[in-house]
Structure formats: C-alpha cells, structure tokens
C-alpha cells in the first residue's frame, strides 16, 4: 500500500497511541472533585500547556473541541454572533472562497439563517489571499463581524501570509480567524506572533487522534458558544473533556512541531521528485497552486508535502480508481460524504475551468512517506493517465 493522502489523515504516532491507551485505562471526569477527577484534570491541563507551548499560545487561549469542523463552526458563528450583538451594524463576513467547507458552509448558513452578508475575497491564481485583497474587502470595517482566511489550503497547499492579513484586519478593528488545520507541523505556526484572533487546528492531521481539535482564541475575543452545558472550556465550549484524546493531541502537536523543520525539508524533496517524475511521464500535466519553490513571508509558500496536479483529458475519479486498484491511495480533493465527485471549488475559485477542476488529483505526503512511495506512483502514473484518457471526459 502506498499512502499519498496524508492531508486527509495521517498515521497515528506510536507515542500518541501509548498516551491515549494509558489515559483510556483510567477513570475520572476532569470536572469531578475527587482524586480521579483531579488526576484527569491534571492530564488535560498539562496537555493544554503543551499545546499552547507548541503553537505559541497561552494555555488560557486553548479551547478543546471535537475537531477542525467544530472549531471552524465555533469561530465563524461564535465571533459573528458576539460581534453583531455588540454592534448591530456589523453583519458582514469576509471569507476566502477557497476555504474548507467547514468555513464555507458556516458562512453560507449564517447568510441564510442569520442575515449575514458574505464578501468573498479575491484570490491570486495560486489561491493566496493578499493583504491588499483583504483590505479592499474589509473597507472601513465598521460593518464586518469577522474575516476568515485559511493558513494553508487543504487542496492545493497554498500558504497565505496570515500575520500580514491579521495586521490589515486589525487596522480596521476586525478579528481574523484562520483555519490552520493543514499548516500546523508543515510550516511555522505561532499564534501570538501571527496576531490572529482565532486559529483552528486538529489532531488527526498531525498523527494524533480523530475527533480532537482546538480553537485557539485570544483572551479578549468575545465568542458566543455553539454548545451549551457545563461550560468546561472558558464557557465558550461545553462537554466533558475527552482526556485520552486531548493527551494524544498534545503529544502529536508537540512531536509535529518539534520535528517540523527536518520533516518539511525531507517531504519537500520527495514532493519535488514526485512532481518532476509525473511531469516527465505526463508532460502536459499541470501543477495547481503556488510554484514548488514559492516563498511567502520568508517561509514556504506551498505546503512541503502537497502536490496537486491536473491531467487534461482524464477524469480525477477515474484516475483515483485506477490508482486505488494498483495500491496507491490519493484524493481528488477534500473527501465528500455523498461520494459524488464534484469539480473542486478551490480550483474553480482560482479560475480553473470545470474540465481542469474535474481532472485533478492531490498527492499529499506525511511523516511516514518514503522514496519508495514516490517510486510506486511513478511506476504506474503514465499508463494510468493513458487509460483514464481513453475513458474520456464525457459526463461518463
């Protein structure tokens, strides 16, 4: 099996498995007052401190959630509600059209149910949001509730200069949320240094457990809760803390951040070889997103493990099926529960036509990737593309 879908989820680290297993063997609700509860609480708070340390935040800024989708929903809706509550003129959301559906659909839900007005940000052809584009969209900011721009795109891997964007947003008094689910562990992510008001991260992209995420939320950010109940997380998020998952998340984040520089260099080299090898065999394939050696704010302008390519004349889902049959696992974009392949909204947002958007594949590398994985793909990609082209691009 050749796993080239680390952006979907990445193998759990052995030390995470050990930490989760150890905690699952214990009893104690972190909100309980007895000894078992205190022990659970201690584990959760240690995890909070380690996460804060890894991501450049203060422990009180770490809110544990059920994952990236919940964090994105909480940031968009919670900041929208709180900011509108404080000033009823504020009803605008400023959002990149290349966001994950957790952000996009939250924005659209707010538009439909809560009378929000969504301003979609202009994108560079690479998918990047520039400070100028954000400034144009914000205007004087008086009617804006919150802006949201992902740190790194989950499909095409483009990194935006989030610190510069936060500066622009703050200049007009608007908070900025960033979905950093793909960025953490791949590029340097420092919450305080970035200046953003809210940041989404999740465990299972880092070698941690699924269903464990965080929203980093500045202490001065007002955020209305989605989930009401015990008020465990700063009264912004309720629900019994999942101590085993939280412990695993902290171990994963610490390891991902500590090993980032070495891993990023290794993955970028593998990724570059993958792209070069594919282009050698399929010369008319097109790389989507930023150039491989792109730089933004002094760091990588593209996630080191991301390769996103279009294969003109071949359908992404045919390519995926043929590769799957040859033991190679990749993706046509973000996974879709209904199972029907749709043209990538990210590619469409950066101006690709529907055919190009439907003929693309994402290969994403991670901590277990090796030269053998790249070799396995390069051994079959030529004939696979040829075969898929024979099946054509007709609507089947």
């Amino acid at each position, binding site marked *: 099996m050749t796993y080239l879908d680390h952006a979907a989820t990445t193998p759990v680290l052995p030390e995470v498995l050990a930490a989760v297993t150890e905690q699952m063997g214990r009893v104690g609700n972190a909100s309980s007052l007895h000894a078992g509860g205190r022990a659970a609480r201690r584990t959760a708070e240690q995890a909070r401190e380690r996460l804060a340390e890894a991501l450049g935040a203060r422990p009180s800024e770490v809110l544990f959630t059920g994952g990236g989708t919940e964090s994105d929903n909480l940031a968009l809706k919670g900041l929208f509600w709180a900011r509108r509550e404080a000033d009823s003129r504020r009803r605008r959301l400023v959002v990149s059209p290349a966001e994950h559906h957790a952000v996009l659909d939250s924005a659209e839900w707010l538009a439909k149910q809560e009378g929000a007005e969504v301003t979609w940000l202009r994108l560079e052809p690479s998918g990047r949001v520039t400070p100028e584009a954000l400034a144009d969209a914000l205007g004087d900011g008086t009617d804006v509730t919150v802006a949201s721009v992902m740190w790194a795109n989950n499909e095409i891997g483009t990194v935006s200069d989030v610190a510069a964007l936060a500066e622009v947003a703050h200049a007009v008094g608007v908070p900025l949320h960033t979905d950093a689910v793909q960025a953490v562990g791949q590029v340097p992510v420092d919450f305080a240094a970035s200046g953003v008001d809210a940041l989404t991260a999740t465990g299972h992209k880092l070698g941690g457990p699924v269903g464990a995420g965080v929203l980093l939320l500045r202490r001065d950010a007002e955020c209305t809760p989605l989930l009401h109940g015990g008020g465990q997380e700063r009264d912004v998020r309720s629900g019994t803390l999942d101590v085993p998952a939280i412990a695993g998340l902290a171990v994963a984040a610490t390891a991902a951040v500590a090993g980032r520089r070495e891993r990023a260099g290794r993955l970028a080299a593998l990724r570059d070889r993958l792209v070069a090898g594919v282009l050698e065999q399929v010369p008319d394939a097109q790389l989507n997103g930023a150039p491989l050696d792109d730089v933004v704010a002094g760091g990588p302008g593209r996630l080191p493990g991301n390769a996103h390519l279009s294969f003109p004349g071949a359908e992404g*889902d*045919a390519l*995926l*099926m*043929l590769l*799957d*049959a040859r033991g190679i696992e990749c993706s046509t974009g973000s996974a879709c*529960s*209904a*199972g*029907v*392949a749709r043209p990538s909204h990210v590619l469409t947002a950066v101006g690709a036509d529907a055919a190009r958007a439907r003929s693309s594949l994402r290969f994403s590398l991670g901590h277990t990737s090796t030269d053998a994985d790249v070799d396995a793909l390069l051994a079959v990609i030529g004939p696979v593309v040829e*075969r*898929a082209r*024979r*099946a*054509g691009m*007709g*609507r*089947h």
Partner: protein
Amino acid sequence: MRVLAAMSGGVDSAVAAALAVDAGHDVTGVHLALSPDRQTLRSGARGCCSVEDAHDARRVADELGIPFYVWDLADRFREDVVEDFVAEYAAGRTPNPCLRCNERIKFTAVLDRAQALGFDAVVTGHHARLADGQLRRSVDAAKDQSYVLGVLTAGQLAGARFPLGSMTKERVRAIAAERGFAVATKPDSHDVCFIPDGDTRGFLTRRLGTAPGPVVDAATGTTVGRHEGTHGFTVGQRRGLGLAVGDQRPRYVLSIEPVTRTVTVGTAELAGVDVVRTGPPTWTGPAPALPLQAEAQLRAHGTPVPCTVEAAAGGGLVLRLTRTERGVAPGQSAVLYAPDPVRGDLVLGQAPVAG
C-alpha cells in the same frame, strides 16, 4: 476477469455483486448517481439513488471487501432518459424509461466507460438469464426483467453478466439474509425512479404545462370530454378519462394527436389491434430470417402474444398477432421471444411500436 458491479443499493445488485466475488472475479462496485438532486434519505419503494441508497450499496461493498465508487451520471441520465421520456409523451407516445436507461446508460455509458478503464464486463442484478450470448427470461416469471433488456445488442450483451437469472427473488433474498446484508429485506423499487411521488401526469404537467383539448369519440366524431394535455394519456388507457357518454360502455384511448391536442376514444372492439407496425428493430444476435414465428410482449409485464413477424418497407416490422390486443401504445417496445419452456424464452430483439 475484472468486472464492474453496478450497485443500486437494492438487494438484487448486492447479491449479484456477491456472486461475482464468489465466482472468483476481480470485482469493483459502482453506484450510479442518476438524480440531479439526490435526497438524503429514501422514502418508501419509489425513487432511486438517494444518498441512503448509495450508503446501502457501500455497506455491501465494504462487507464484500471490494472497492466502491459513486459515478455521477446525472447529466447523462437527464439527457438520455428523462428528457427522452418527456419528449416521447409530448409527441403522443408512451416511452419505457427503464428500457431506455438500460440501452443508453447502463449498457452504453457505464459499459463503455468500464471497458475503457480496463473492465471486461458489467454485472447487474437484473432478473434475466444470459449464457453463450443468449438472453432469456428469468426462472422467476414474476420478476423477469428480460423485457427491459430486450433492446440490448449482441455487442452489449457480450459485456454484460446477469448472475441472478437462474434463481427466484425469494432465493436472492435468502442469500442476502444468509450473508447478513442489511438490504435483505429492503422493499423492491417500483414505478419510474425519477418520479418519486408516482404521479406521472403531475410530473409531465410540470414539465410540459397544460394544453387543453377535446376528447373525441371515434364512433360518432363528437366531443365527449376535455383534457388538460395529451401527455396525460396512454393508448389503451381506460381509467381517468372523465367522460360523459350516453351509453355505459367503457371507452379506451385509441389515439393521441398532440398537434391538434385531440385524444380519440372508442369502445373495446375499436381499441383492439391484431396488426402492429414498428420502427426498425434491434436484435440480440444475428438478424433472423423473416418472416418468423415468435411471441411478442408489447409492454412491461404484458402477456406475450404469438405472432408472425414480417419485414416492412422502411426497415420496420409488421407483427401479425394471433389474438387481438388492447393498449398497444406507440413508443412502447415490442420485445420478440422464441418460446423455450426448458431453457427459458429466448429474447430475439425488440422494435418500437410505431404510430
């Protein structure tokens, strides 16, 4: 052999896929998403390819340990089946959309794509026997689907596998239950899949609008009623005519004239035909020598009628029936069979009823 199993989420295609796996084939499951606006959950026995149906199909594929994908054929289905259905009714004919779907979607679009991707055949859960290129009725007469497959050509049949033809529906459900498939007790689907509420006339009125016209009695030439659109009628139809005629004898639709918006009705004697003219036929094998003695089935679930099949000018056929049939509607397919009580009636081919 590498085969593609078309999996609707129903019990038949689930068992067909399982039998293909048992037979040692390298099987990949595919669910065809045909509806442009898929419902999240299925409602009753109508409708198709909801997300829930796709989930049911995926559950079976996962239990079988085979790859599974959803193919979005909604655009193709709309053009080739739904629009054809509407256009046929607009022209005063009565189409069979299941037959059209087999002809153009399952055994053209899907089969072509499957073969291009390196598969040798498409497996479906149709109840029909197929061996040595010969298509025959299922052993389960009540569930036989050879009629809606009668349009397939030898080339298409060469790429098709129907593992269920030699077993009853009861047996299919028993196999599903033995294997623990949750779909073992799922109800059979009925009616036209893209009209989930079952109201064909309402569907056509939404698509075609109302176009009122007269209902004329063939014997007297007098107008005996009004209608809201010829697309609400099928030749041979008796119910729902809403007529006020002097005598109490039932009337049947004899013909539909969309141009003059006239629906002509008549009594039972006038509604019967013993000669049926068709358009050009398709054959499941080499074209047979004509004239030919055969049985014609003139609609889904219709009783076959012995007939003589003759060639007609213009490439069509003339079917001389040995008994009078009512409700032979233009647009329906006449599927021709060579009776064979031992191995199952052999499907020779089909031709669309002209008119």
